[in-house]
């Protein structure tokens, strides 16, 4: 019985819990943390249950209010969004778990409302991913965006301005999306994705459809922070509090990427996206520039978090490139990278949170002796860094494998070379950090002894931070080693059959 309702529960639980959070906060402020954890745990459980159902019975369609699809709103959960749901709930659970000390530390007196907005943010993400209706998607996109603006704005000094810019561009993106919905509705009369997919092929020659598609893509690209529409992202995510950026950075861009894949391959037929418009070419080139520009900009940063944010821009490029390649391996790589990158970015941002909490710095040059102070955290940083570089058997390697395979299949040598080159750029980035954190430059020929120089006591981050970080590290390895399994059970169904 309750399993039947699991799709709705994934959304409803965080939503109801968000409503109740201020009340919980009235009773005891400290309870909010556990309350949020509990609700996200429940949501995670239900999304895993739902994924199990999808795996055994195929696509689930859940009619809200029991109105049949084109008239009412439905949830459609296939393999792709079942995976996304588990990803979103799982990651937000881990981020919430991590946030206990950092929220109290960075936002004293605001924990109750922070957690309320945090849950609403998660609700927004889940709503976007689970729905089968284009307008409903817009509504949840706005919930996620509004919560995101707030989560960014409570950060450090420049955060409100960064958030304001995010609002302006984010609203442009959302409005463009809404315009796209309007144009589609105008010529089809439907808002349901599957219904649209059936109605649209006859209308592909229509200029209205063309405009709709273009607006969809631009709108989503803004949310996804695809170059050159990424300008809002670096400031916003750098200046946001640790807990916010750890939630937003891995998920917001990935959810937007999911929407892009839905639009291109579910609502529109792949052939439209590929043939009627030079979308794939534009997308791939934008992605290539994003990959290179992101990595180069990251090189110029002295702040670890800012460096990660630019790496995120570059990672979004990978996802877009896979979509733009528009072949089986490329798209597989792209979807796999959504999963892997979310895991890597979460781990990295959580690590930054732990470093900020304990060492009170984000400047890479100040990281000396950090490997003695926080050996476990720094170990995780090394592993996550290796994954971003793409060293097997971490997960970053496998998504790169498929992406490069896709580029080679498509005979796009430049893209393949750029992908390879970016690994090297990432290697420079991370080994620079590792050098600062691990090496203690000493005089020539001096045989250092352990007790030489400054005595550094170990001051490791609290367990609530280390556990999620190491869950992320485990994810990095597991997603890597089991990438074949993930593809054969989930991702291969998400790739359109015509590829």
């Amino acid at each position, binding site marked *: 019985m309750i399993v039947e309702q699991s799709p709705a529960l994934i959304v409803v639980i965080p939503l109801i819990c968000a409503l109740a959070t201020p009340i919980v906060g009235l009773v005891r402020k400290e309870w909010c943390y556990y309350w949020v954890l509990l609700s996200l745990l429940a949501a995670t459980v239900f999304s895993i249950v739902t994924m199990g159902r999808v795996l055994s019975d195929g696509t689930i369609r859940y009619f809200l209010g029991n109105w049949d699809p*084109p008239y009412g709103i439905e949830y459609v959960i296939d393999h792709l969004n079942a995976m996304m749901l588990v990803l979103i709930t799982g990651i937000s659970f881990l981020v919430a778990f991590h946030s206990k000390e950092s929220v109290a530390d960075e936002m004293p*007196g605001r924990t109750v409302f922070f957690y309320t907005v945090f849950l609403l943010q998660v*609700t927004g993400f889940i709503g976007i991913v689970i729905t089968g209706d284009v307008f409903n998607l817009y509504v949840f996109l706005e919930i996620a965006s509004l919560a995101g603006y707030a989560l960014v704005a409570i950060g450090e000094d420049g955060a409100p301005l960064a958030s304001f810019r995010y609002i302006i561009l984010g609203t442009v993106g959302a409005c463009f999306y809404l315009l796209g919905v309007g144009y589609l509705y105008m010529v089809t*009369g439907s808002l349901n994705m599957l219904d649209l997919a059936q109605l649209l092929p006859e209308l592909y020659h229509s*200029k209205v459809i063309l*405009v709709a598609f273009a607006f969809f893509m631009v709108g989503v690209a803004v949310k996804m922070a695809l170059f050159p529409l990424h300008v809002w992202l670096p400031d916003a995510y750098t200046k946001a509090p640790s807990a916010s950026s750890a939630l937003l950075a891995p998920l917001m861009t990935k959810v937007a990427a999911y929407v892009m894949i839905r639009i291109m391959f579910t609502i529109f037929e792949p052939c439209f996206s590929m043939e009627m418009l030079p979308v794939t070419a534009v997308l791939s080139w934008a992605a290539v520039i994003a990959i290179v520009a992101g990595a180069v900009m990251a090189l110029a940063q002295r702040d670890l978090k800012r460096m990660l944010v630019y790496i995120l821009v570059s990672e979004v490029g990978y996802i877009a490139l896979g979509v733009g390649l528009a072949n089986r391996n490329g798209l597989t790589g792209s979807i796999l990278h959504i999963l892997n990158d979310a895991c890597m970015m979460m781990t990295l941002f959580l690590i930054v949170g732990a470093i900020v909490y304990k060492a009170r710095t984000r400047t890479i040059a100040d990281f000396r002796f950090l490997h003695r102070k926080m050996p476990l955290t720094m170990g995780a940083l090394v592993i996550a860094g290796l994954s971003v570089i793409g060293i097997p058997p971490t997960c970053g390697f496998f998504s790169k494998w498929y992406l490069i395979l896709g580029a080679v299949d498509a005979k796009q040598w430049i893209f393949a070379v750029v992908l390879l080159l970016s690994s090297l750029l990432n290697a420079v980035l991370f080994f620079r950090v590792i050098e600062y954190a691990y090496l203690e430059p000493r005089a020539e020929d001096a045989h250092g002894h352990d007790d030489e120089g400054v005595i550094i006591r170990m001051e490791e981050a609290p367990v609530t931070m280390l556990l999620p970080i190491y869950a992320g590290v485990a994810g990095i390895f597991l997603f890597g080693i089991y990438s074949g399994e993930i593809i054969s059970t989930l991702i291969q169904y998400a790739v359109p059959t015509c590829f």
Partner: protein
Amino acid sequence: MKFLSLVVTVITGAFLVYGTIDMPAWGDADSPASRHVSPRYIEKTEIETATPNIVTSVLADYRGYDTLGETTVIFTAGMACILLLRRRKRS
């Protein structure tokens, strides 16, 4: 910068004008938008929801879930404002 903004705006506008060419005529009762889903709301609303105001019945019943989202948006905005503007009590 201003010039660039103007160019972007004009391009967007021009693109929208381009899209307008293929649009169904304004006020056409036979346009796809009026033919596909919406007739059911008009024809069946009374039987199915017993509400003469069709907008209400769609808002609160057929697409009630959107409205749930809508109220959540308001709630989110409220919480966001409190989160952002609340000044810490001196204690």
